[in-house]
C-alpha cells in the first residue's frame, strides 16, 4: 500500500501531470490562459496518429499473438457491459433521472483516449512493454457503450430514437478512423516506416502531451467552475468508485485472456476511463433531454483527473502485485 502511494507520488511530479495541474489551477483562478481550439485539435490528431502508428509498428515487430482476437472481443463486451453496472450504481448512489443516469453510464462504458495515452507513457517510462494492438482495443471500446445506454432508455419506454445515421457516425468518428488508420499504417510500414518519422512521432511526444494536458486541465477546470453545485456528493462518489470497479473488472478480464502486465494495465485504464468527446457529442444527438453538464462534469471534471493522477499508478501497482510482474 505504501509502495502504491509512493509510486503515485512519484507519478504526480512528472511534467505531464504538473502541466495538467497547472491548467486546472489556472482555470480555477480564472486566468484567461487558453489554448486555441485549432491547436488543441491539432495536438489531439498528432497524439492519436502517433499512438496508433506506434501500436501498429509494435504489432508488426512482435507479430499478432493469439490473444488479439480475445482482446478485441473483451473490449467489445466490456464496453457493452460496463454501462449496465454504471447505471445500476448511479440508480443506487444518486438521484439522477433515468435518462441522465443512462447518459452518464454511456460515458463510463466508453473510453478516454488521452487517459490511455498518458498510461502508455507511464508504462514507457517504466520500460514495461504492452501489446501494440491495445490501441485497436481502445478503438473497439469507443462506441458500443452508447448502444447500451440507448437500450437502457428505450427499455424504460421514453422514446429515445436510434438515429439511423448515428451508428455510422459513431463507427467512423474521426478519432476511431485516425487511430485505426494509423495503426494499419504502422503495421504495414513497420520499423522502416517508424524510422522515417520517429523524430516526429516519438521524440517530441511527451512534450506535446504536456501542452495537451495543460489544455485538458484548463477545460476541466472551467467545466468544474461552471458546474459548481450541479453535482451531489453521490455523483462525485460514483465518478471515483466507478473507475475502481471497472479497473478491477478489466484486471480480471486481462488476466483471463492472458495479456502481458502492460496489456493488463492498459485494459484496466481503458475500462476505468470515461469518454468526454465522442460520447457527449453522440448524447446531444440521441439523448438531448440528458443534461450535458452532469455527464461532462463527472467524466471530465472528476474521473479524468482522478485517473490521470491517482488511478494510473494505482492500477499499475495493483496489476504488478497481482501478477507478480
Amino acid at each position, binding site marked *: 500500500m505504501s509502495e502504491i502511494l509512493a509510486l503515485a507520488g512519484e507519478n504526480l511530479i512528472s511534467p505531464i501531470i504538473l502541466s495538467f495541474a497547472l491548467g486546472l489551477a489556472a482555470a480555477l483562478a480564472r486566468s484567461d490562459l*487558453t489554448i486555441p481550439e485549432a491547436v488543441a485539435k491539432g495536438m489531439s490528431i498528432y497524439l492519436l496518429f502517433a499512438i496508433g502508428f506506434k501500436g501498429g509498428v509494435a504489432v508488426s515487430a512482435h507479430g499478432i499473438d493469439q490473444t488479439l482476437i480475445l482482446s478485441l472481443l473483451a473490449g467489445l463486451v466490456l464496453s457493452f457491459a460496463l454501462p449496465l453496472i454504471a447505471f445500476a450504481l448511479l440508480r443506487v448512489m444518486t438521484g439522477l433521472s433515468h435518462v441522465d443516469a443512462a447518459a452518464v453510464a454511456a460515458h463510463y462504458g466508453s473510453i478516454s483516449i488521452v487517459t490511455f495515452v498518458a498510461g502508455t507513457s507511464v508504462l514507457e517510462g517504466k520500460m514495461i512493454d504492452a501489446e501494440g494492438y491495445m490501441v485497436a482495443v481502445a478503438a473497439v471500446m469507443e462506441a458500443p457503450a452508447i448502444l447500451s445506454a440507448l437500450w437502457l432508455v428505450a427499455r424504460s419506454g421514453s422514446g429515445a430514437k436510434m438515429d439511423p445515421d448515428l451508428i455510422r457516425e459513431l463507427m467512423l468518428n474521426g478519432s476511431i478512423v485516425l487511430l485505426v488508420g494509423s495503426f494499419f499504417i504502422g503495421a504495414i510500414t513497420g520499423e522502416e516506416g517508424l524510422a522515417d518519422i520517429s523524430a516526429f512521432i516519438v521524440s517530441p511526444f511527451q512534450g506535446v502531451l504536456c501542452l495537451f494536458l495543460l489544455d485538458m486541465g484548463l477545460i476541466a477546470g472551467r467545466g468544474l467552475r461552471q458546474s459548481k453545485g450541479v453535482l451531489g456528493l453521490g455523483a462525485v462518489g460514483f465518478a471515483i468508485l466507478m473507475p475502481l470497479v471497472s479497473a478491477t473488472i478489466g484486471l480480471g478480464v486481462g488476466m483471463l485472456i492472458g495479456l502481458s502486465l502492460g496489456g493488463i494495465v492498459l485494459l484496466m485504464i481503458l475500462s476505468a476511463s470515461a469518454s*468526454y468527446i465522442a460520447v457527449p457529442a453522440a448524447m*446531444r444527438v440521441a439523448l438531448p*433531454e440528458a443534461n450535458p453538464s452532469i455527464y461532462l462534469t463527472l467524466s471530465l471534471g472528476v474521473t479524468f483527473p482522478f485517473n490521470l493522477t491517482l488511478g494510473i499508478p494505482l492500477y499499475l501497482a495493483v496489476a504488478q502485485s497481482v501478477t507478480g510482474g
Partner: protein
Amino acid sequence: METHTAKRVEIVIEAPLERRLTDALTEAEVTGFTILPVLGGSGRSGKWSREGQVGRSGMVSVVCLIKPERLDGLLDAAFTVVEKHIGVVSITDAQVLRAERF
C-alpha cells in the same frame, strides 16, 4: 437597384446537429443557407464558450434567406430538428438583390 422581399431566418443550434439541420432544410427544398461559427453564448441552459469545449461541441448559426411564402415550410423543417434541443430561431424581414438566386 431592384430588390425583392424575403425573410431572413437565423437558427442557432448545437454543432453536432448541424448536418441534421441542413439535411432537413435540403429535404424541404431550402437550398440556400450560410453557416457562421459561434464563439459562445448564454441561454436557458446556461453560459458556454468555445474555450471551455472539447471535441465537436459548441454551436453554429445558420442563416437562410427565403421567399416569404416558403417561410412556413422552412420553420416546420427546422423545428423538427431544433425541437428538443438547445438553440433559438429568429426571423427578420429583409430585401434581397438578385431574386433569381434564392
